């Protein structure tokens, strides 16, 4: 297995899918000649040319709409948002058109489109550029939401997303593009959407984490093991919608305790949804109220010290685990 950064794993997935299916093309701001703002599309324009890798003006609503139209006409667009913060401009196309087209057309038009780009905080990019939007989009029927946390997951899930016949929102994390991991060499390697992954097995407490909080949760788990002999299980749902609640519930039935660590804000978050579903399916197995850890209820600050305080970190996750374990 090759060791790749998440950035290169995504690049491989795009390249392989462009090669595999002539209907696949990539479109967005700076994706072609500049190799992508975060270099995810590096080399693709040189290799495949203008028809498969398309630069757009700074018009999110416009190129999202072109993507939806192309998908209705039978192509498989991969639309890159420079960050998901800018997708808010295109939300009408995503929510009102991509998500609704199959339903509104009485099943006539599938929209096999992928919207992708970095989501959540970066480094000091302040409040308008640091938002985690998964809860917002996951709220709407018709949209699948995917959030990988490792290079292998990024590659396998992006390939599945491109092959899916319905709109998939693929939320990456800028801070994680350089994270390395083993990726299977198989160029037909995919991971099905809607399948959680147990990143670490444990018996005393479950942490559900996604995207950036997965590596933090794994560090917290090691610390709990070393310092308190508490065995923590870490689950990454990988796909937020559809959510693999069964894997989470099975884990909570074993550990009786749950912490959800996420980068979005607290109110009406994906963690709130997971907490509710666990309460619904594993009420009799809980030994403590589910604990949720989110970014502070405030616009994300620019100042480095305040930004660090606002975001989840290992110490906060450890404190949450100790709380549900009554330590």
């Amino acid at each position, binding site marked *: 297995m090759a060791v790749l950064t998440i950035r290169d794993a995504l690049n491989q997935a795009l390249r392989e899918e462009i090669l595999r299916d002539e209907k696949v093309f990539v479109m967005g701001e700076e994706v072609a000649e500049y190799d992508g703002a975060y270099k995810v599309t590096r080399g693709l324009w040189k290799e495949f040319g203008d028809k498969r890798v398309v630069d757009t003006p700074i018009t999110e609503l416009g190129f999202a709409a072109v993507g939806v139209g192309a998908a209705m006409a039978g192509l498989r667009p991969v639309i890159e948002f420079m960050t998901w913060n800018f997708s808010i401009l295109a939300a009408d196309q995503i929510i009102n058109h991509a998500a609704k087209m199959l339903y509104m057309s009485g099943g006539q038009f599938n929209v096999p489109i992928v919207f992708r780009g970095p989501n959540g905080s970066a480094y000091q990019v302040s409040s308008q550029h640091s938002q985690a939007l998964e809860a917002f989009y996951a709220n709407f029927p018709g949209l699948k939401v995917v959030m990988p946390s490792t290079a292998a997951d990024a590659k396998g899930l992006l390939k599945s997303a491109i092959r899916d016949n319905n709109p998939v929102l693929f939320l990456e994390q800028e801070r994680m593009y350089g994270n390395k991991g083993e990726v299977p060499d198989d160029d037909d390697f995919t991971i099905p959407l809607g399948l959680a992954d147990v990143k670490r097995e444990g018996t005393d407490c479950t942490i559900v984490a996604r995207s950036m909080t997965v590596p933090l949760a794994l560090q917290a788990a090691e610390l709990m093991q070393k*310092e308190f002999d508490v065995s923590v299980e870490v689950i990454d749902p990988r796909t937020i919608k559809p959510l693999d609640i069964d894997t989470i519930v099975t884990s909570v039935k074993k550990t009786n305790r749950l912490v959800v660590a996420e980068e979005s804000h607290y109110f009406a978050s994906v963690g709130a949804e997971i907490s509710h579903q666990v309460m619904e399916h594993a009420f009799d197995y*809980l030994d403590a109220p589910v604990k949720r850890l989110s970014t502070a209820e405030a616009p994300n600050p620019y100042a480095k010290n305040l930004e660090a305080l606002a975001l989840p970190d290992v110490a906060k996750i450890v404190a949450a685990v100790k709380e549900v374990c009554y330590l």
Partner: protein
Amino acid sequence: MAEKFLMPKLSPTMEEGQISRWVKNEGDAFEANETLAEVDTDKATMEMTALKGGTLLKILKGAGESAALGETIAITGKEGEDISALLSEVSSNGAKTQPPAAEEQPPASEGEAKAEPPASAGGTTPKSETAQEPKDPEPLAQRDNGRLIVSPIAARMAADNGLDLKSITGSGPNGRIIKRDIEAAMESKVQDPRSKAFKPSTVVGASPFRDENTSKMRQIIASRLAESIGPIPTFYLTVEIEMDNVLALRKQINANLEDDEKISVNDIIVKVAATSLMKHPFVNASYQDKTLRFYEQADIGVAVAIDEGLITPVVRGANLKGFAEISAEIKDLAAKAKAKKLQPEEYTGATFSISNLGMMGIKEFTAIINPPEAGILAIGGASPTPVVRDGQITIRNIMNVTMSCDHRVIDGATGAKFLQTFKQMLENPVLMLM
């Protein structure tokens, strides 16, 4: 309006109290926070204070009489008020032998809540209080108006195992009964049947004897120590320590101190033990069912013999204190212990203990662990002993120290390493500067 004044909870382990003396007499007026009486609890004589002002109308439990927690011991109110209704209520309740808890508690819990604040206001509760609460046999009905708070998995496990939740004390927040409480109850279920008090007959022919009521303190010692030697798998490690350097050090230090400031060998031992504990977290720890609790400072319990038994006042954070401070604190605590004036937070919640019988001519002994601590050092007397050094027989002051270890926390090697550090530091006190 006249009210019943109920026996308040004056120590964390108190179940009943004995009126030592009434400070106020019937007819006396009192202000809020004024002391009404002194009460002997299981550990100390505590001042029972009033939550609000009023007049002491009637004393129902005189000096020397005992009352259970929440039992009416007096009537308070306004001067000249009619208290006949309250008195007949109290006496009709009293006519029943031992009112069943469920019946007596609801009114009691209200009065209890009123009577309790002065007690807790009298002493800040120790930091580890929530964790120790499970050990605390608090009347059940006091929890949230008698409603039991139980985590779902705990309720399910109790049902599956036929456990009565009412008999279990919760260790979670607000007394919530959680999984580990059920697990603990399942473990102790087997050993539970407590023998009823033995009522001897005075049959002629058998050896005559007399029964003396055990003091509260003796009862607590018995139950604590039995609790210790029973479930705690204890093992013992003994080490010989050459004390000549410590004795010299003490001499040097004391040469510069006034008589009442002079430090003892035991003060140095406390400091060295605390410093060693910081290097061996497993010894400064406690077994908590599924978890081990590691303490960040060394709160050393120092066993002090008093007329009725013994008590272990605690030197908090001994690792952070100097000899002089430790010495002054131990003198102060020992004096308070002898006067039975120790406050609960002064004798509970140690992380490790030391018992020194050296001054009583004991060469070597084993001490019993005071749970939930994981270890205790039994310190014998240092005496001049011939030893072999560099092939020569020479005389050194040798002190034997035996550590009792809770094997659930401390393994043989862990304990031995701690004792190595302890020995090294005592033999070369200069290492403490490192």
